C-alpha cells in the first residue's frame, strides 16, 4: 500500500466517551497544564529569561517559599468565594455574569455597617459579613425573578445589574461616602475592629476561615442536602425536573440568590482583609475569574478550592515576572491566558476520544 492510499483510507474519528474515570480526567488536565506551561516557558526564554531563574523565581518562590505561599493564599481567598459563587449558579445552568456587581453590593453592605457603627463592636465583623451576604443576595434576586417569571435572559440582566452596582458605588464615593479626610473618591477607612485580623503567619488573615467554611457549607449543600440533589436534577434536565413536579423556578432562583450571597461574602473578605474601605477598583476581574474557576473545577466545591489556589498562584507568578523582569503587562496576561486556555481545552479530550479509523474500499 502506498503512503498516499494509506492517507486516503484513514481518517480521524471523534468519539464521545461513555465513561470518564476520574484518574483519566486528572491525567488529561495535568497533560494540558504541562503543554501550556511549556509554551509559556518557550515564550519567556525567547524574551531572554533564563530557565534556571524561571524555576527559582516563579515556581519555587510562588509555591515553596513562605512569603510566596502566603501571598498566594491571600490572593486566592476571595477567588475561592468568587468561584463558589459562579459554581452555585452554573449548577442549575443559570449564567450569573453579574458576580462583580453582587460583590460590590456586598462591600456596600459591609461599609454601611462600618460607617454607621451598627451594633456592638464585639460582633461588628459578623454583622458586616451578614450585611455583605444579604446585600449580595438581594442584588442577585431581581434578575433571578425576571428569569423565572418572565424568562428574561440572565446573561443580560445580571451584566446590566453589575453596571448599576458600579455606578451606585461611584455615586457613593463621590457623594455621601466620600472620604472626609482626603476628599478622594473612596469611603473612609474601616476602624481596627472592622478589619479581619491576621492569623499570625505571614500576611494570611481570617478570610481563609471564611473561605474554608464556605467550601464546607457549599459541599454539604450540593453533595448531601435534598436541595443539592434537586438542583443537580434541574441542571441536568430542567424539562424532566419540571415534568416530575420539582419546583424548578424556586430552585433556580434560590441558586442564583445563594450565588449572589457568596459573591457578597467575597466582597466582605476583600474589603475587610486587604482594602479596609470601599474603592471603585476593588471588584475588577473577580467576576470573570470566578467563572473560569467554576468551569475548570466542574462546579465541585473542593475542586473549586484547588483551582482557585492555582489561579492565585498564576497571578502571583505573573506579578513576580513583571516585578523581576519588567516584562510588559500584556505578555504576562498572554502567559496566564495560555495556561488557562490549555487547561480549558483539555475538557475536549476528556469528553471525546480521537481515534484513527481505517476503512476499505473506494
Amino acid at each position, binding site marked *: 500500500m502506498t503512503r498516499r492510499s494509506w492517507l486516503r483510507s484513514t481518517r480521524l474519528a471523534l468519539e464521545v466517551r461513555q465513561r470518564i474515570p476520574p484518574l483519566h480526567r486528572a491525567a488529561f488536565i495535568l497533560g494540558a497544564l504541562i503543554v501550556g506551561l511549556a509554551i509559556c516557558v518557550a515564550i519567556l526564554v525567547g524574551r531572554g529569561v533564563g530557565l534556571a531563574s524561571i524555576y527559582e523565581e516563579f515556581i519555587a518562590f510562588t509555591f515553596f517559599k513562605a*512569603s510566596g505561599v502566603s*501571598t498566594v493564599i*491571600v*490572593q486566592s481567598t476571595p477567588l475561592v468565594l468568587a468561584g463558589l459563587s459562579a459554581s452555585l449558579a452554573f449548577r442549575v445552568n443559570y449564567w450569573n455574569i453579574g458576580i462583580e456587581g453582587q460583590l460590590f453590593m456586598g462591600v456596600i453592605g459591609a461599609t454601611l455597617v462600618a460607617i454607621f457603627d451598627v451594633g456592638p463592636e*464585639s460582633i461588628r465583623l459578623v454583622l458586616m459579613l451578614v450585611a455583605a451576604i444579604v446585600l449580595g443576595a438581594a442584588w442577585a434576586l431581581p434578575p433571578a425573578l425576571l428569569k423565572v417569571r418572565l424568562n428574561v435572559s440572565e446573561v443580560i440582566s445580571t451584566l446590566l445589574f453589575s453596571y448599576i452596582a458600579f455606578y451606585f458605588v*461611584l455615586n457613593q464615593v*463621590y*457623594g455621601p461616602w*466620600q472620604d472626609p479626610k*482626603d*476628599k*478622594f*473618591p*473612596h469611603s473612609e*477607612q474601616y476602624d*481596627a*475592629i472592622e478589619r479581619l*485580623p*491576621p492569623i499570625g503567619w505571614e*500576611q494570611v488573615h*481570617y478570610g481563609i476561615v471564611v473561605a474554608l467554611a464556605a467550601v464546607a457549607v457549599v459541599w454539604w449543600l450540593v453533595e448531601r442536602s435534598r436541595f443539592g440533589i434537586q438542583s443537580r436534577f434541574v441542571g441536568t434536565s430542567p424539562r424532566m425536573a419540571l415534568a416530575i413536579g420539582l419546583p424548578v423556578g424556586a430552585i433556580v432562583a434560590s441558586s442564583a440568590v445563594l450565588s449572589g450571597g457568596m459573591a457578597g461574602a467575597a466582597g466582605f473578605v*476583600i474589603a475587610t482583609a*486587604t*482594602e*479596609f*474601605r470601599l*474603592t471603585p*477598583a*476593588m471588584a*475588577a476581574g473577580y467576576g470573570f475569574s470566578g467563572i473560569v474557576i467554576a468551569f475548570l473545577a466542574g462546579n465541585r466545591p473542593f475542586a473549586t478550592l484547588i483551582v482557585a489556589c492555582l489561579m492565585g498562584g498564576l497571578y*502571583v507568578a505573573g*506579578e*513576580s515576572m*513583571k*516585578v*523581576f523582569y*519588567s516584562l*510588559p*503587562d*500584556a505578555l504576562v496576561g498572554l502567559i496566564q491566558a495560555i495556561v488557562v486556555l490549555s487547561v480549558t481545552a483539555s475538557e475536549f479530550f476528556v469528553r471525546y476520544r480521537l481515534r484513527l479509523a481505517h476503512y476499505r474500499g473506494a
Partner: protein
Amino acid sequence: MWRKLCCVAAAALIAAGFAASAEAEAFKLKGDPKPAWIYFNVKNDGGWTQAIDEARIRMEKDLGYKIPFVEKVPEVASEITPAAERYIERGHNIIIGSAFGYSDAFKDLAARYPEVAFLNPAGTTNGPNLQSIYGRTYETQYLCGMVAGAISKSGKLGFVAANPFGLVNWTVNAYLIGARKMNPKAELTVIYTGAWNDPVKERAAAQALVEKGVDVIGQHVDTPTPQVVAQEAGIFGTGHHRDMREFAPKATACSSIWVWDQYMLPTLKSIASGSWEPAPYGAFVHVGGGADIACCGDMVPKDVAEKVMAERDAIIKGKHVFEGPIVDQSGKERVAAGATPSDGDLWGMDYLIQGVVGQLN
C-alpha cells in the same frame, strides 16, 4: 477570636507608639540607594504613566544605574503590597509609586518596613519614611489657560475634566483665571466625564464642546482624546500630563506636563545623604519642581509665549494663582480680596468660579 482581636488592637496601639517615637529621628538609608518603581498603568499609556516612565529613563542616565519598574499594578492593596515586597526582598530600599489608590497600601508598607523610603506621586499618605507628592497643577493649567485665552478668537473656551473633586476643580478654575488675564471676557464651558481614562466619553464631551462653538479645548483627563478632536475640528487645544503635540501637532498650543525627574533626582540625593525629611502633609510641587509647561505651538504669537514664560517666573518667585477675590458660580465670595487660599482649601476645592459654565455633579 475576639480575644485575638483585642491583642491585635493592642499591638496596633503599641506600633503606633513606636511610629510616633521614630518620627523624631531623621530617616537613614541603609546602603546605597536602590530605587524601584511601581506603575499603575502600562508604561506607554500616552499620559500620566508614560510621563513617569520618561522621567525614569532620564533619571537612569543621570544616576548611572538602572531603576526597575513593574507596570499595570492596579489600585488594590492585594496587588500593590506583594509587588513592593518582592522589590524589598531583592534589596531595593526606595519604592516609588504612581497613584492615589496606592496611598493606604504604601502607608502600611512604610510602617512595616521603616528602613525603606517610600515616595508616591498622586498619593495622600505621609509618614517618617513615606512622602506623597502632587503637583500644583493649577499653576501649569493657569499658564495654559493664558495661552488659550490669547489664541481664542471667540473668547469661548472648553474644558474636558475627569472627576469632580479638588485637584481637578482647581485646574478648571485656574484655566479660566489664566484665560481672563489675556482676555477678560473669556468664558469656559466644562464637561466632567466621571472617569480618568475613558476615550469614548472624552470624545463625546469634546465634540459637544466643538458644537457649542468653543475654539480652544483644555483638559484634565488621562488620554490625548480632547486634543485629537480639536485637531479634527480645526480648532486648538491644550494638553495635560505630557506634551500632546505628539498626538495633535497642529492643534496643541501648550501642555501642562509632569517632569518627575525635576523632583525625584534631588529627593533621591537627599535620601542618600540622610537629609530627607518628608513633609507631614504631602509635598506639593510648584511649576519647575516636578510640574511644568511645554510651550508653545507655532500658532502662539511670540509676545504671548514671552508673557506666559514671564508669568511662569513670577509663580516660581511666589505669585499665587488664586489670589482673592475669588467668587464662585453662585456669586459667593470664596477667597477675600488680597487673601490666598490655604493648601487645605485648595485640596478641598468643591466649587467652580464665576464664568465657568457647567456643573460639578
